[in-house]
């Protein structure tokens, strides 16, 4: 049973409160919910939550024979199915529009943007390469699962370590973590995604990281994925209220500022987790 659209009371209240730049959960219009990242026992397992929106990302690696057309590159596949556990809006089997957007965005942000160096995943040209499989599980949708999923994906990739591999001639030996320290992935840059919700009433300012009610009552969202080096990997505004170029440039600048902050939070969290992990090796 699809959740009913919001009531007129909620609609009017949200528009009035946003006109006074007040949000229901007390945030500033351009304030993102503080992400909480908790890491699992193995490396490459992270549970990322923005407020009540929660996504688990998990990476597995295995060695496979590369396809003939790309013998020198590793393979990265992303699996992101939204099940009804996230919210009753999603049904099994039927791909919802939200799932198409999220799946495509993950593909653009994590794969097409060459965030991970694929050549470094090659063990033995057209013999053996690493196949990284990133799986995302959507646990709760309290709005903006897109940013949460992208964040979980990139953090999992940065947190993952693959076993050390040695190649002599065409003989490959793989060292388990207990013998040799596992190897981090070669990451060129780490893109983060920021979603802004816009409203048909021009007097209402755009809102960063919309909650579920804001997302449902918005007249279109714009997503920008960029890294801390001010390079935009994805700029996606599909319809919604038309904007003047100067407004678009304005939210780009906001996203650039936010990217620095988020990058810092992620790096600190990773250091914290890494230091608490004792990886003993003989």
């Amino acid at each position, binding site marked *: 049973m699809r959740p*009913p*659209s919001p*009531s*007129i*009371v909620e609609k009017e*209240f949200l528009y009035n*409160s946003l006109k006074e730049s*007040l949000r*229901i959960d007390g945030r500033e219009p351009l304030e993102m919910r503080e992400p909480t990242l908790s890491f699992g026992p193995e490396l490459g397992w992270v549970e990322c939550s923005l407020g009540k929106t929660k996504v688990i990302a998990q990476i597995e690696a295995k060695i496979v024979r590369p396809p003939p057309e790309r013998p020198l590159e590793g393979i990265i596949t992303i699996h992101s199915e939204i099940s009804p556990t996230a919210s009753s809006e999603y049904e099994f089997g039927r791909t919802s529009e939200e799932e198409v957007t999220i799946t495509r965005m993950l593909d653009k942000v994590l794969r097409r943007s060459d965030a991970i160096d694929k050549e470094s995943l090659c063990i033995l040209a057209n013999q053996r390469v690493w196949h990284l499989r990133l799986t995302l599980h959507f646990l709760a949708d309290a709005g903006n699962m897109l940013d949460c999923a992208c964040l979980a994906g990139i953090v999992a990739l940065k947190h993952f370590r693959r076993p050390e591999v040695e190649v002599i001639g065409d003989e490959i030996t793989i060292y388990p973590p207990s013998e040799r320290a596992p190897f981090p992935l070669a990451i060129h840059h780490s893109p983060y995604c920021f979603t802004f919700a816009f409203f048909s009433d021009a007097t209402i300012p755009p809102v960063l990281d919309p909650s579920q009610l804001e997302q449902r009552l918005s007249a279109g969202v714009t997503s920008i994925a960029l890294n801390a080096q001010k390079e935009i990997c994805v700029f996606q505004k599909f319809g919604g209220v038309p904007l003047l170029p100067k407004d678009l440039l304005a939210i780009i600048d906001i996203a650039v500022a936010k990217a620095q902050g988020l990058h810092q939070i992620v790096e600190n969290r990773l250091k914290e987790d890494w230091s608490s992990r004792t990886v003993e090796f003989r």
Partner: protein
Amino acid sequence: MSIIFPGESAPANHVNLKLGPGLLQVSSIFNDASDGETPRKRPVIIATKAGELKHSVKGSQWWIESNSRRYVPVLHESVVGLITQRLGEAYRVDIGSAHHASLDGLAFEGATKRSKPNLKVGSLVYARVSLAHKDMEPELECFGAQTHKAEGFGELKGGFVVKCSLEMCRCLLNPKHFLLPMLGRRFPLDAAIGMNGRVWVSAKNVKEHIIVSRCIEAVDPDGGGMNEDELKKFLHTLGV
């Protein structure tokens, strides 16, 4: 306070026993070897929900206090409903239960064929459950059972609606609970508390609405679960 789990039997027996939510009477065969007779069937009360077993002073009424979010309609309970569809005379209302309830166009105080309230899809109503049966769709009415007067029922305009757990609604309705009096001392406020986990709040300005909704979410056992002094500190941080 005794916690009971589904399947456990409850020591409830009274001449005219009344069972509340979460308790079920089952007749189970007892081969009571002690008195050597043939096994007799003795009614046993077992719990079907996990929660705290409670009974009235005289022990005639027993029920289980548990928390959930899915509302099961109960006769004469007041609920906050959302109009989802208009079918000719009647409205279909979403009250968060398994089925949509139906609200007749004339079930309002002083409504006649000609003059009846014109509710739009998406408007909120405060209504009383007039029919609650497990095999039938629940029905609502917007007037008191005995007095047929509005008694606050009808369309809810303006204000804001907060979703919370069912136990929170029961606390809000309990006059001894600290939340509403504490807020009432700070600014005037009126609220329509639906037993179905939805509370309609109306205050003077937007800021106060937000404070009330955040407090309810903070005190909600499912949410922050704050007690009185934690809430005082929280209100302080909100600058009230």
